[in-house]
């Protein structure tokens, strides 16, 4: 199978990650810059302006309080002389001075010298007039003092009020300008946020699409590889089985016949030579060796591919094989058979036999158990083969290093069956192979 060269997605993904991180860093820097600009604007302009306006409102409030006090003085409905208001005026004057001083500190940058001077002069004129009014009141000239309030004090208070109102309007205008700038910054940031979000979403989308495509290709490759591996394994198994069967047959048929013939010839020769002679003894020994070799060849042939599997089927083979293993390994194997047996296809039987062979090999090699159980169960749908030992367990893990486990699985898959390893409650390993009846039964259909 031709394999197209596959490119790893790691490079593209790393590149995407670097671009994303760079975009986030750049965006964060931009936002920080904008926030810093905003903070500066708010601190230097908006906050400054707000505090200045608060002081101007305080001044305005004081001027209004003076206005109300003057109105009360003119109303003349209090049982107190005009001089009683002196303390009230003094309190307001103290607060007004303090407010104007604070306001002057806050308004330096935006106030013209002429405006400052005008405010100062207007205030001085007001307090001059107020002092004159209270001097008149002190001297008992209440009527003149009230006239002074009407003609001079109220007018000056009104002038001051107008001046302060104008400054407040000016502050409002600056505040509006600042608000516009702030709004522009917000708009810019908002627009950048949208752009950044769009770019990020596009990058995420493209990366995702790329990942999906790469994954699909990866999975397809894995699938193909798995298929190839499975096919290869099956071919290997088939070829191995074919070779073993051929060797087994050669051993059995060719060497078996030759050794049998040799044995017959030796028996005949032996009869022609008198007993007790040295030659008779030698011939007897050679005949025994030939017989022993014949037995070994038959055993080997049986081991490579039990002929009886083809001739009498799986059950008989297992009936022969299990005691053989017991003898060879010294493991006490309990064998149970249940259900109504059905004849298996020859190909299926050899795979089941091989799985049994490998499972018992693993028990002997890895489990350390002295006992094992083999269960063969026929049912209407399937054949179940279980090999269980209560040894140290982890047989499947230990066997994983070899190709035995792979071969067992492949054989199970060849039969469209399943193979499972588990640990029984008593410990050890349970190998369970399930082979569906359909497709594996001899003469089925």
């Amino acid at each position, binding site marked *: 199978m031709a394999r197209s060269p596959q490119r790893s997605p790691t490079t593209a993904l790393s590149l995407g990650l670097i671009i994303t991180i760079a975009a986030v860093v750049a965006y964060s820097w931009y936002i920080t810059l904008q926030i810093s600009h905003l903070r500066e604007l708010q601190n230097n302009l908006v906050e400054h302006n707000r505090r200045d306006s*608060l002081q101007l409102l*305080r001044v305005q409030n004081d001027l209004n*309080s003076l206005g*109300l*006090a003057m109105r*009360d003085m003119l109303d003349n409905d*209090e*049982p*107190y*002389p005009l*001089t*009683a*208001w002196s*303390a*009230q005026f003094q*309190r307001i004057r*103290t*607060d007004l001075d*303090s407010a104007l001083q604070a306001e002057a500190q806050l308004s330096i940058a935006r106030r013209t010298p002429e405006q400052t001077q005008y405010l100062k002069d207007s205030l001085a004129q007001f307090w001059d007039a107020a002092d004159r009014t209270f001097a008149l009141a002190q001297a008992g000239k209440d009527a003149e003092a009230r006239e002074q309030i009407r003609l001079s004090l109220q007018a000056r208070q009104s002038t001051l009020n107008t001046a302060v109102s104008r400054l407040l309007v000016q502050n409002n205008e600056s505040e509006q300008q600042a608000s516009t700038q702030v709004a522009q910054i917000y708009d810019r940031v908002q627009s950048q946020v949208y752009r950044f979000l769009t770019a990020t979403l596009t990058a995420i989308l493209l990366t995702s699409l790329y990942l999906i495509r790469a994954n699909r290709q990866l999975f397809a490759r894995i699938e193909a590889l798995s298929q190839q591996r499975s096919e290869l394994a099956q071919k290997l198994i088939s070829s191995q089985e074919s070779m073993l069967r051929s060797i087994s047959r050669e051993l059995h048929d060719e060497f078996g016949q030759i050794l049998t013939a040799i044995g017959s010839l030796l028996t005949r020769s032996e009869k022609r030579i008198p007993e007790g002679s040295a030659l008779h003894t030698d011939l007897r020994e050679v005949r025994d060796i030939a017989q022993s070799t014949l037995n070994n060849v038959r055993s080997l042939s049986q081991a490579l591919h039990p002929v009886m599997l083809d001739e009498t089927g799986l059950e008989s083979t297992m009936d022969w094989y299990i005691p053989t293993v017991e003898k060879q390994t010294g493991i006490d194997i309990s064998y149970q058979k249940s259900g109504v047996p059905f004849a298996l296809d020859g190909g299926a039987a050899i795979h089941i036999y091989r799985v049994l062979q490998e499972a018992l090999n693993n028990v002997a090699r890895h489990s350390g158990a002295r006992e094992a159980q083999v269960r063969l169960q026929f049912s209407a749908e399937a054949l179940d083969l279980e090999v269980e030992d209560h040894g140290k367990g982890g047989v499947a893990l230990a066997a994983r290093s070899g190709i035995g486990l792979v071969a067992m699985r492949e054989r199970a898959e060849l039969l469209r069956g399943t193979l499972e390893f588990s640990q029984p409650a008593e410990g050890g390993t349970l190998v369970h192979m399930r082979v569906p009846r359909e497709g594996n039964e001899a003469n089925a259909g």
Partner: protein
Amino acid sequence: MAGLAASPRARANHQLLAPGAIAGQSGATPGFRLVDVTNAAGIQFRHHSGAYGGKLLPETLGSGCAFLDYDADGWQDMLLINGMDWPQHKRQRTTLRLYRNNRDGTFSDVTRRAGLDVEMYGMGVAVGDYNNDGFPDILVTCVGQNRLFRNTGKGAFTDVTHSSGLDGRLAFSTSALWFDYDRDGLLDLFVCNYVKWSAEHDVFCSLDGKHKSYCTPEAYRGETCWLFHNRGDGTFEDVTAKCGIFDTSSKSLGVAMLDYDRDGWPDLLVANDTQPNKLYRNQRNGTFKDVAVEAGIAFSAEGKARAGMGVDAADFDHSGLPGVAITNFDNEMIGLYRPAANGTYNDVAVQAGVGLASQNTLGFGCAFLDANLDGALDLVVANGHIDDTVRNIRGNVGYAQPPQIFLNNGQGKFQDVAASTGDGFIQPKVGRGLCYADFDRDGDLDILMTTNNGPAYLYRNDQQTGNHSIRFRLTGTKSNRDAIGAMVRVEHEGSTQERLVKGGSSYLSQSELPVTFGLGKRDKIDRVTIEWPSGKPEEYKSLAAGQSYDCIEGKGITPQGHF
């Protein structure tokens, strides 16, 4: 601020209590319960605002209450001020109520017998023995003419408004207090006035443009407070203008007496509604100077004049200087002012845990008192809105509101524990006046609260932690007989507490004159020092707790039995 030179010395003597030094002081349980004993005590008072639908401004403000020992038997009696129907809408006759303490947890209505069943649109009350005869006299502030009732000493009162020279002044008076501003041994009278208002000149205000609603004070002109000097012959002289407190911009609702600069001369703090608060510093020459702006207490931290209602002053942080609490409108928070050494105040309401808790309440009466007797002054506040439709405008603000008790942990933090003091106290009500006294003489302070157009509530304080207290009742000889203005300092195990004997405070109300100190688990105090208004200090050592003591100026101290 020359007078403040004394403050470092005073401060040095007022070490903060060590954390955990006082028993029963925990955030979770207040250590006391407030049991509603109004009915059990036989109090059947209901305030009548005269509201008939005309939505007249005074109907929103409620009335005050006072604890006083009118018969001088050593048991605190109770006075509940009442309004009345408006002249053109007479339906019923309502008067203030004087309840005599029966010394068994119950009270008897003795209003008629005492000659006080007089109809008037009463607002506040100030109790003081202005003629030094040993029996407290009563000033009732009114919408209209204020009334002065002289105690005859025989269980009755005589209306001396005219003979005292207080008549002929129609105003919208609110809180008032007796104090001896010139330290001549005679109690003088300070009266707050709200705005220039009369039923005839009531302004039509409306929220929807159709129906009349209650106006805010901005609709009316302010009115100066009054100071009347006691001539000592039963008459008073109006020294308002002469003493420098004349101010027609004020819209005053609450007044507290304090010794702001610790010079021994009484100063005044006036809470104004929508106008800057006033801190009148006594210049020791018969005049006052408003230093509220310099002291940082005139406005909120944002520079706004809030709607000041009730006010109290006390050394709640053991700094040796009086701190101040001012209740304000909803959305304005209570102002809790901690004194600094340079004569200024910092509003620490938010940091102390009082600010946010009072964000949605409209506070009126308030008082510093040691509710759990742990040695740290707590703050009790009566709440209730002025607008019965406020819920329609601000969903999270109700007309009836639960009162609050902010428990002081002694380390600058307060926590509202009203919900843990029992079921009765926490019930929402349209709270107004608030005062306290140990009416059952068990050593702790009980609370009396009035509501607008509703009942008065008497809450008995039942201690649960076994904390001790010590109480002092002072009688002046050279000083004014009530000893108003006397500073009592108690020292125990290195810590110092102080109480100023004072009238007024809270809102339209007056608490008892005897002073109570919580001592935690301590069973004695090392020393008590009394600085009499006459200037003479007296000191008594090693006094057992769990007792009340009578102190007579220049004549010693006498225990008056255990609690």
